[in-house]
């Protein structure tokens, strides 16, 4: 027993150094002013930025929904492919992810910008040009593109884990093809779907690079706001810490609620994905 305990010490140390202490520092900054004395002003002043919060959540929710609508059918189709098809599909999803995140996002800039590839194509086929760059739509496209794999993969995993005999059993009991889906496949893929939603929503709500590159500063998101507090002209580490803290609380609540939905649906059984 003693040796087991001793083996855990490095991890405990790690947790203290890189998780607990930084968290405490965030707490300290969030509840103090520049002079270092206790205050709640940081949270009160945050009200000025409520529009940023609103925009961030709206964009993150829309992007997550689009990812869900695109990702679920893709994952479902993948799970129906043969072994080769699955591998090919998996490679097509994974390979872009091996490319640098910034590079991928800049690539969208060259596609979407006013003199970009998209408009070049549109004018070539005599269609009106679109002005997408520097709008929330461009940020949304960037989010969906970057985070879609995080939606597809957990859903695919949960679909793939469904034993074929369950589908046969459903058929056997009298389900039509569509009933097999609604009564068995869909309920059993809920855990993966919930993971996918969390894995897309959290980075989407806190991103700042995508909005910076594709949004052009026109639509400031929470991520940008936090970045501005630390690196921008409006240096205010206390405010930045307070915003981070609020984000953390919101994300924790969001995760808890989605997990709760998952559990309820599962009727308390021990199906862990």
């Amino acid at each position, binding site marked *: 027993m003693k040796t087991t305990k001793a083996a855990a010490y490095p991890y405990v140390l790690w947790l203290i150094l890189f998780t607990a202490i930084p968290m405490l520092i965030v707490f300290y900054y969030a509840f103090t002013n520049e002079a270092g004395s206790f205050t709640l002003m940081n949270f009160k002043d945050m009200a000025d930025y409520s529009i940023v919060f609103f925009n961030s959540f709206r964009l993150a929710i829309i992007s997550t929904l689009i990812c869900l609508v695109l990702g679920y059918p893709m994952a479902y189709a993948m799970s129906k492919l043969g072994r080769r098809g699955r591998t090919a599909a998996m490679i097509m999803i994974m390979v872009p992810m091996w490319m640098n995140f910034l590079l991928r996002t800049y690539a969208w800039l060259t596609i979407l910008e006013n003199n970009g590839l998209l408009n070049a194509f549109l004018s070539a086929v005599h269609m009106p040009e679109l002005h997408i760059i520097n709008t929330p739509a461009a940020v949304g496209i960037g989010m969906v593109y970057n985070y879609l794999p995080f939606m597809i993969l957990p859903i695919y995993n949960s679909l793939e884990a469904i034993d074929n005999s369950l589908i*046969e059993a459903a058929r056997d009991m*009298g389900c039509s093809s569509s009933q097999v889906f609604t009564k068995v496949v869909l309920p059993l893929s809920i855990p993966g779907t919930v993971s996918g939603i969390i894995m897309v929503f959290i980075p989407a709500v806190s991103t700042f690079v995508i909005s910076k590159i594709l949004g052009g500063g026109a639509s400031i998101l929470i991520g940008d706001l936090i970045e501005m507090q630390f690196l921008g002209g409006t240096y205010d580490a206390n405010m930045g810490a307070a915003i981070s803290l609020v984000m953390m609380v919101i994300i924790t609540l969001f995760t808890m609620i989605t997990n709760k939905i998952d559990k309820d649906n599962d009727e308390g059984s*021990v199906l862990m994905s």
Partner: protein
Amino acid sequence: MGSDGFLSLRNVRKSYSSNVILNSISLDVDEGEFVTLLGPSGCGKTTTLRLIGGFETPDSGDIIFEGKRINDVAPNLRNINTVFQKYALFPHLNVFDNIAFGLRLRGVSRDEQKKLVNEMLELVDLRGFGSRSVNSLSGGQQQRVAIARAIVVHPKVLLLDEPLGALDLKLRKEMQLELKKLHDSLGITFIFVTHDQEEALTMSDKVVVMNKGEILQQGSPIDIYNEPANAFVADFIGESNIFPGIMKRDRYIEFFNTAYDCVDEGFAPDEPVDVVLRPEDLLLLNEGDKSIQKADCLLRGRVISCLFKGIYYEIMIDVEGAGSYQFMAKSTIPEDPGREILIDIDPENIHIMKKSSIETITMQKHRFMHDPNKNRKDAPDEDD
């Protein structure tokens, strides 16, 4: 081979690419019958079941159910339900909802659902288990939920794919009896797949012995045991001494260079045949026993080994003139290894069968010599 049986397979053939799984099998099942498909792994018995259930379609031949050809009818449109090998209970539903699954699809009212499901829970001895998660149940309990789920919608035929394979021996015996009781009380036709010959003999009205995609023999358990059609059936259905012989003429068989009286006839003169002697039919005598004078067929040998098996001793005997072939006898009296012994065989117990392929025989001899417990094959059987 009635033309309008209850459930019939007619020259059904099934293959996956070049791999022939079923080679033109024909089978008739009567309403209310308990039929067992028996055979080793890969013999095609599970495929046969899946064809009847509608999960596979035959390459050629017909499946006829209540006078209609159902080759291409989807599983959900057949009045046939399956108890799957690994139960296939829905993990997102509790016991009650699993059993009510088929009822809901059929639009049965809530009250009626409750009544029927509770009746089922009663029937399979799981009263009060309705709200339990299926994952919290033991194998035997899951098994019973699977059966309840399948029979609550009153199918005409229940297909059972090695449903007892995952249970321990004691539970298996219990479930065998319960299933038999269930069959008798429900009047549903059961088609049961197993590789366990004892299970097949215990439960069935009719046993269908299969090997390599073909039906070798079908008949009542007693017929199959007493009159195996060939060496494979004889070997599979119970431990046997199987060796080659020559039918000199009707009722006269020669093996190991000596001819004996027997009761079989209808073979060509000097036709090579397979001889089957059940180990329990070998009567072991000692020099000087009175009954020796009365013996018709007497073999002389030496005891090689004697193993205690619980209710009997398994005695291996080197028989004079039999070369390396060893006889197996089952006796309630132990015999010392090395001792000279006489074997008395009643002519009625000498079973003569048409020669099957050489390959089968050598394979059997080999298994027989090295694996006396072959009939208790507990390994899970993957049939595809």
